[in-house]
C-alpha cells in the first residue's frame, strides 16, 4: 500500500488488474447471505434470546441469583470482562507491532485480528453492565464521573479503543469495498448500497492512497498506547486495591503479556476457521500458521516470565496475606485449576510448539483451543481467589458465602456475551471481505514482478 514509484507501476499494471479479479472472486465468494449464514445467525439469535432471558431474571431478582456474595463480590462477569479486554488487544499486536516493524506476512491476518478486536472490545462494555447492581444508573457514570476512579478511565479507554479498532478495520478495507462493489451485483440490494456508501468515492487514485496511508499510519501508532492503556487500566481495577493477590506493581505488564497470549490464540482459531470454511487455503497458507505459531511461542514465553515474577516474589516472602492466597493456589482449593491452567494452557503449549509438526494448522488449532480456554480460566484465577481471603476473618455469615460458585444464570449471561462476540465476528466476516483483496493482489503482483525481474 506504500505508493512509491514501483508501487504505482504495479497498481496500473495489467497483471495487477487480473490479480484483483482472481483474488476478489476467491474472497468475495464468501460474502453472501446464504442459507448457512441465515441458519447460523438464527441459531445464535435463539441461543442469545434464551441466555438473555436469564439476564431478565437477574434484573428482576437482583444479583442474588448469582453466586456472588459479600465475600466474593466479583465473579465470572468480571473475569469474563478482563478476558474480553485481553483478547481484543490482539488487533494492536498484529497490525501495529508486527505491521509497523515490516512483517509482510501479517497482511492477510490483520483484518481478522481487527475483527476480533472490534468484537471483543464492543462486548466487553456490555459485560461490565451485566455485573452492575443498578444497570439503570449507567448514565451516572457520565453525569457524576470521578476522574480518580479507574472505572472511569476504563470506560474512556475501552470506548476509544473500540472506535479506533473499528476505524482500523474499516479504513484499510475502503479500497476493497470499491473493488467489490462492482463485483457483488447478485447480492442483496442493501449490501450493494452499503458498499457504495462505505467506499467513500474510492476511485483508486494515487492521492487517495496517499491520504489513506497517512490516516492508517496515524491509527496504527495511536492504537499502541491505547491498547496498552486499556489493559493496564483494567489491571489497575485490581492493583489499586490493597488485597493480597491483587496488590502487585507488575499487574500492568502481567495483564498485557497475558492478553497477547489469549488474543493470538483467538486469531489462530479464527484463521483456521476461515481457512477451512471459506476455503482460503491459498491465502492463509501453512506458512502463515507457522509464523503466527512462533508469535504465540514468543508471547507465551514473555507471559511465563511475568508469571514467575508474579508468583515467585510474593511466594518467596510469604507476607501474611499473600501466604494464605498462594497456599490456596499452590496446594489448596484452587490448586487443580491453577496448575492445569499454568501447565496445559501455557507451559506445555510452548514446549509442543517448539516442534515444527505442531505448528501445522490443525495441531496449532488444538493447542490454541487449550490456550484460549486456559486464558479464560486464568482470569478467573486472577479475579476470584484473592477475594476469598480478606485481611480480617470472615465470620457469622452463611457457610455458602465462603466459597464462590457461579450459578446457572451467571453462566448463561456469560454465554450470552460469547454468543454476541460470535455474532459480531460472523456479521463482519460474512458481509465484508475477510481478507484484504487489494493488498493481497498488490503483494502477489509485486512478488511475481520481482521474480520476473530477477529472471
Amino acid at each position, binding site marked *: 500500500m506504500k505508493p512509491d514509484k514501483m508501487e504505482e507501476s504495479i497498481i496500473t499494471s495489467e497483471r495487477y488488474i487480473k490479480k484483483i479479479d482472481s483474488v476478489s472472486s476467491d474472497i468475495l465468494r464468501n460474502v453472501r447471505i446464504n442459507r448457512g449464514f441465515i441458519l447460523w445467525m438464527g441459531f445464535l439469535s435463539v441461543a442469545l434470546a434464551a441466555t438473555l432471558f436469564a439476564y431478565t431474571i437477574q434484573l428482576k431478582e437482583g444479583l442474588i441469583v448469582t453466586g456472588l456474595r459479600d465475600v466474593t463480590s466479583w465473579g465470572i462477569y468480571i473475569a469474563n470482562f478482563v478476558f474480553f479486554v485481553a483478547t481484543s488487544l490482539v488487533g494492536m499486536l498484529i497490525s501495529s507491532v508486527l505491521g509497523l516493524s515490516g512483517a509482510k506476512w501479517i497482511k492477510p491476518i490483520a483484518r481478522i485480528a481487527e475483527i476480533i478486536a472490534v468484537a471483543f472490545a464492543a462486548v466487553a462494555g456490555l459485560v461490565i453492565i451485566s455485573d452492575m447492581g443498578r444497570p439503570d444508573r449507567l448514565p451516572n457514570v457520565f453525569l457524576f464521573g470521578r*476522574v480518580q476512579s479507574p472505572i472511569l*478511565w476504563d470506560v*474512556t479507554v475501552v470506548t*476509544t479503543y473500540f472506535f479506533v479498532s473499528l476505524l482500523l478495520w474499516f479504513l484499510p478495507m475502503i479500497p476493497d469495498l470499491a473493488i467489490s462493489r462492482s463485483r457483488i451485483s447478485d447480492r442483496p440490494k442493501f449490501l450493494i448500497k452499503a458498499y457504495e456508501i462505505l467506499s467513500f468515492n474510492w476511485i483508486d487514485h494515487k*492521492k487517495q492512497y496517499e491520504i489513506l496511508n497517512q490516516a492508517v499510519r496515524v491509527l496504527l501508532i495511536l492504537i499502541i498506547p491505547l491498547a496498552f492503556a486499556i489493559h493496564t487500566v483494567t489491571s489497575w481495577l485490581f492493583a489499586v486495591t490493597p488485597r493480597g493477590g491483587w496488590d502487585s506493581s507488575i499487574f500492568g505488564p502481567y495483564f498485557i503479556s497475558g492478553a497477547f497470549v489469549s488474543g493470538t490464540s483467538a486469531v489462530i482459531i479464527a484463521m483456521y476457521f476461515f481457512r477451512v470454511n471459506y476455503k482460503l487455503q491459498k491465502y492463509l497458507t501453512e506458512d502463515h500458521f507457522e509464523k503466527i505459531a512462533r508469535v504465540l511461542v514468543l508471547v507465551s514465553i514473555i507471559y511465563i516470565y511475568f508469571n514467575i515474577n508474579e508468583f515467585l516474589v510474593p511466594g518467596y516472602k510469604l507476607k501474611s496475606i499473600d501466604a494464605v492466597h498462594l497456599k490456596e493456589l499452590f496446594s489448596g482449593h484452587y490448586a487443580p485449576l491453577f496448575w492445569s491452567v499454568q501447565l496445559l494452557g501455557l507451559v506445555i503449549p510452548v514446549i509442543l510448539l517448539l516442534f515444527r509438526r505442531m505448528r501445522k494448522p490443525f495441531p496449532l488449532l488444538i493447542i490454541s483451543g487449550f490456550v484460549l480456554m486456559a486464558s479464560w480460566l486464568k482470569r478467573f484465577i486472577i479475579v476470584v481467589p484473592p477475594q476469598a481471603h480478606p485481611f480480617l476473618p470472615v465470620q457469622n455469615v452463611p457457610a455458602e458465602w465462603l466459597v464462590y460458585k457461579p450459578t446457572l444464570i451467571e453462566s448463561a449471561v456469560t454465554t450470552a456475551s460469547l454468543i454476541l462476540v460470535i455474532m459480531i465476528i460472523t456479521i463482519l466476516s460474512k458481509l465484508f471481505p475477510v481478507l484484504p483483496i487489494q493488498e493481497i493482489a498488490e503483494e502477489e503482483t509485486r512478488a511475481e514482478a520481482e521474480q520476473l525481474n530477477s529472471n
Partner: protein
Amino acid sequence: MKNILLVIITLQLFIFDLKSQEWIVPDDKKSKLSTFPFDDITRKAGEKLFSVNCMSCHGTPGKGNFLNLVPPPGDPATEKIQRNSDGEIFYKITTGRGQMPSFKSVLSSPEIWNIISYLRSFNKTYQQQVMAVITSSAYPGADIGLFLLFNSSDSTVILRASATKGNSTVPVTGAEVKLLIHRTFGLLTVDEAKTTDKNGMATFRLPDNLPGDTSGNIMVSARFVNEELFGSSTKDTSLCAGIKTIPVNLVADRAMWNNVRKAPVWLILTYSLGLLTALGFIFYVLMKLRDIFIVGETLSSEKPSKEK
C-alpha cells in the same frame, strides 16, 4: 493428717476466693436511704430502667437467667443480692466493678432508687426505711449560688459559692464542688473535686490542652458533689479558657479520594490531555476520510467522460 491439710488448703482457697469476690462498700455509703417511699409507680419505672440497663447481664429477676460471667452477675431476686442494704445496692450500681459498668453518669439518683424499688419487689420480707427529710441543710432556706471566674495567668478557674437569704449573703464553706466541661455527648470532669475554703472559694486547675471553640470559649459547669445537702444547684458559664480550635476540615485538600472538583491536578491534566490527544487523532483520521471522499468526488465528475 494429709486429708486434714487438704481440707484446710481447700478451705483456705475457698475463703480466699470468696474474699477476692467480696465487694466492700464503705460504711458511710451502706446506710444511704431513698428519700422517697417505694410504690407501684416507682416499681414500674424501675422495671423499665432495669430492662434497659441491667437485664442484658442480670437476666429477669427470679428466673436465674443471668449471663455466665466471672464473677457471675447473679440474679437480683436471690438472697445473695437481696441481703445487701439499699445503700449497698445504690453504691454498687453507681460505681460498678469489673465487668459491671458504672451507672453514675447514666442514671440519676432517683432512677437508681426506682430500680432498687423494683428489685425489692422480689423480696417478701423487705421493709423499706425512708430517709428523713433533710433538715440539717447547712444553709436552710437560703438561695445557693455558684460563680466562676477564669484566671488566664495561671489557667485556673476560681469558684465562689455563696448563700443568700434575704439581704445577707454568706460564703458556703466546706462544701465539696466539682468542675465539668461540656462536650458533645457528655460532661468531662476536670481536676479533682475541691472543698470550698472559708471564703467559699475553690480553685480548679485546667489542663492546658483543653480545646475550646474558634475563639477559645468553653462551656463550664460547676456542681456540688453532695447535692442532697446543698441542692442541685449548677452553674453553666462560658469561659474563654480553652485553646482556640479551628476545626480541621477533613475534605479540604486535593486527594485521590476527594470529590472530582478536588482531584489531584496532575491526574486531571493527565486524563484530559490523554483523552484529548486520542480524540484529536481520531478527528484527524475522520477528516482524512472526508478528504478521500472529496478527492473521489472531484475526480469522478470528470472520469465518466474519460471512460466513455
